[in-house]
């Protein structure tokens, strides 16, 4: 499926075609889930965010600008929803800490056993970063977007991306120095 086909699909979604939404979901849901999971480090919340992303796609398809690729639009929605979620989470106490839910270690059942230690280290390191740095670090270093793409996705300038990334790298390096993985 190329970009112009996807634009067609989004036009159909704007007219209320459910089948086109299903095709877009089949294509983008794994990527949206992966991105949300890397940004939020929480499988359940990522699933909720992924559904919210497609709700936005369904509701705002008429506002899609065909000048940009559909993928950019969908990832941008994902990033903004994750950003809002992270800002909200700052003020929320996880239910696991209150004893209502099992420990967070049982999360992310899709991650292979041998990589879970690395994932939990990433989670710790990522959660220690301020929200903007966390977003920039994940998009640039883990997802592999370039500076311009990251800036576009987050609605920042390229300079802001660079400065946030350099701060984030400094913090991550300092954290990793103390850590020895088996």
């Amino acid at each position, binding site marked *: 499926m190329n970009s112009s086909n996807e634009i067609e699909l989004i036009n159909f979604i704007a007219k209320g075609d*459910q*089948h086109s*939404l*299903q095709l877009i*979901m*089949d294509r983008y*849901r*794994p990527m949206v*889930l*992966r991105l949300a*999971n*890397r940004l939020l480090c929480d*499988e359940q919340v990522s*699933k909720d965010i*992924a*559904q919210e992303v*497609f*709700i936005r796609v*369904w*509701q705002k398809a008429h506002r899609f600008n065909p000048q940009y690729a559909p993928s950019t639009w969908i990832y941008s929605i994902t990033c903004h929803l994750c950003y809002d979620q992270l800002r909200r989470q700052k003020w929320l106490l996880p239910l696991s800490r209150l004893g209502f839910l099992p420990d967070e270690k049982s999360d*992310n059942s*899709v*991650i*292979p056993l041998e*990589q879970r230690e*690395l*994932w939990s*280290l*990433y989670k710790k*390191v990522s959660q220690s970063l301020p929200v903007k740095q966390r977003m920039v670090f994940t998009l640039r*270093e*883990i*997802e*592999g977007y370039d500076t311009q793409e990251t800036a576009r996705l987050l609605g920042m300038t390229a300079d802001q991306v660079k400065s946030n990334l350099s701060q984030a*790298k400094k913090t*991550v*390096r300092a954290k*990793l120095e103390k*850590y*020895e*993985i088996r």
Partner: protein
Amino acid sequence: MKYDDFVNGVSSIPCVDSSCGNASAVVRRVRNRKRNKRLMLSALMLVCVGVVPVLGNVHDENRDLALWNEARPEIKNPSQQQWIAYQRSQQRKQFIMNRFGDLKI
């Protein structure tokens, strides 16, 4: 641990769920949200319709008639026009009292 090893290692973690979402679930959720919004608005309107008359002055015909008899005892059965003119003058008086009642000249 080295920074590059860490970044490469994390990038290779396949944190993707194989299950694919359902478009009809999304559409259903949107419809439910719209319905909930409509219900909320209706509930809000019902509350307003119930509360506003309680907060405002409820029309009391006996009280109005008593006030009329006190103000214009010479006219026993006021016409509609006289009645309206009286009500307006009362409203003006009330407005001036509310606005300038505490003004001492």
